[in-house]
């Protein structure tokens, strides 16, 4: 479990995170959503320690990460895996070397055991026959999956995914979402996903934190979001007519009625 308490972060005179608190449980996908510039990435970087918050605390399973010594932080970081927006694979290394890198650095396993583990996680993310390829030879979706394999190769307790679907087509995005969801449940990981992909919100959002201009605007899950009356959230989530229709269809399925001005016939067309 990761707990964020009253996190505040400023850059110069501009405060980008205002007293945000949240509890993110293990075994579920915790989503941070919001428009570009709402502070999602800064919040995530504060959580993993890439930024030091001005105020507030981040607790990993009750341990105060913010106040830890650099050595203790290093120990916690060994339990963290992170999937970056641009994949962040090492250009000069092959797929196999990329995934093996954390094992090389933090284990004393024999090469055969490391290779076995690498192949296991690559198979888990559906990457086959690409061990000797370089990142430049991979598609965007494959890069994300290799990066996910590298993030989980040490069996992390916490997985952070920064915009895992950015630059991917909807079908590949669904594959990545499903993988993240399955891995989260399979290994009981506390997963934090930073996204503005609505499919992800609806598919994997066990817990959703909506950020608006650096503030926590709303929190709930992917069922509650349908019925939320928060205007800013609704404007963000259901920005297009298509998504508004989808929301109403979902409400209809759940409750049998649509509580707004639209008539039923229109939504069923």
């Amino acid at each position: 479990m990761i707990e964020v308490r009253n996190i505040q972060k400023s850059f110069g005179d501009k405060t980008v995170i205002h007293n945000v608190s949240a509890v993110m449980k293990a075994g579920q996908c915790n989503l941070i959503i919001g428009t570009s510039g709402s502070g999602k990435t800064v919040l995530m970087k504060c959580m993993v320690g890439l930024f030091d918050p001005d105020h507030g605390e981040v607790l990993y399973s009750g341990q105060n990460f913010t106040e830890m010594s650099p050595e203790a932080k290093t120990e916690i970081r060994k339990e963290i895996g992170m999937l970056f927006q641009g994949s962040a694979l090492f250009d000069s290394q092959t797929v196999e070397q990329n995934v093996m890198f954390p094992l090389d650095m933090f284990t004393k396993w024999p090469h055969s055991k490391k290779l076995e583990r690498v192949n296991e996680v690559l198979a888990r993310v559906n990457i086959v026959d690409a061990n000797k390829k370089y990142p430049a030879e991979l598609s965007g979706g494959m890069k994300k999956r290799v990066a996910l394999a590298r993030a989980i190769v040490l069996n992390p307790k916490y997985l952070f995914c920064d915009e895992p679907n950015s630059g991917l087509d909807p079908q590949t995005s669904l594959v990545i979402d499903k993988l993240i969801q399955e891995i989260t449940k399979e290994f009981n990981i506390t997963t934090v996903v930073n996204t503005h992909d609505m499919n992800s919100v609806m598919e994997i959002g066990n817990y959703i934190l909506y950020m608006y201009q650096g503030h926590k605007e709303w929190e709930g899950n992917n069922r509650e979001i349908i019925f939320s009356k928060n205007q800013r959230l609704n404007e963000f989530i259901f920005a297009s007519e298509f998504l508004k229709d989808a929301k109403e269809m979902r409400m209809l399925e759940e409750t049998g009625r649509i509580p707004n001005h639209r008539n039923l016939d229109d939504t069923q067309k």
Partner: protein
Amino acid sequence: MTIFSDIGRYLLMIKGMFSRPENGRMYWKEFMHQCTEIGIGALGIVAIISVFIGAVSTLQTAYQLISPLIPLSTIAQIVRDTVILEFAPTLTCIVLAGVIGSKIASELGNMRVSEQIDALEIMGINTKAYLVLPKILAGLLMIPFLVIIAMALGIWGGRVAAISANIISGNIYDKGLHEGFKAYNVFFALAKGYTFAFIISSIPAFYGYYVKGGALEIGRSSTKAVVVSCILILFSDYILSALLL
């Protein structure tokens, strides 16, 4: 104010490099990789420059020594001392600042911009120690070695030019090389080599490590790294000459 802030961050980067390695074997592997990149990677250009510098020195010294009272072997002495004292350490290192410095700055800059450095930090790796320290240590090991090669090739290039242009014979050139040789000059050249090696590896590493932005900024930081390295090499060349000669 930026210059003081930069100096402060540079010193913090140097301080941050010294921590217990997460895995000594991986650090050694990275060090050896950097030795290959810096040493072998720059050997070709160093060899070409040194041979031609030595050859040109011989031709120009012979052109200026027109007095029949000065023995011809003096040409070899002048070429030897010029190459050892100045051309091999300073000129070679200025070229290396361009070759190695831009490579280090752009490599680290690309890693920063594409979040590879963040990825290493998240894994719990001290990136200053893992990425910067091996480059500086490899520079300190390989650049003085390249300076020694440059000395030898420069003097040899001078000999080849002297013989092929019929200025002096090989025997006279060799005789001149042995006359008035001071081992201290080699020590001085190596002192400069170590100083310049630190500049060539650490300054570009600083500019690359702290780059912000995208491809344009990587290019800018790489250029800035080379320019600052060259200025510092020339400045420290003057200081060392004033102190040690």
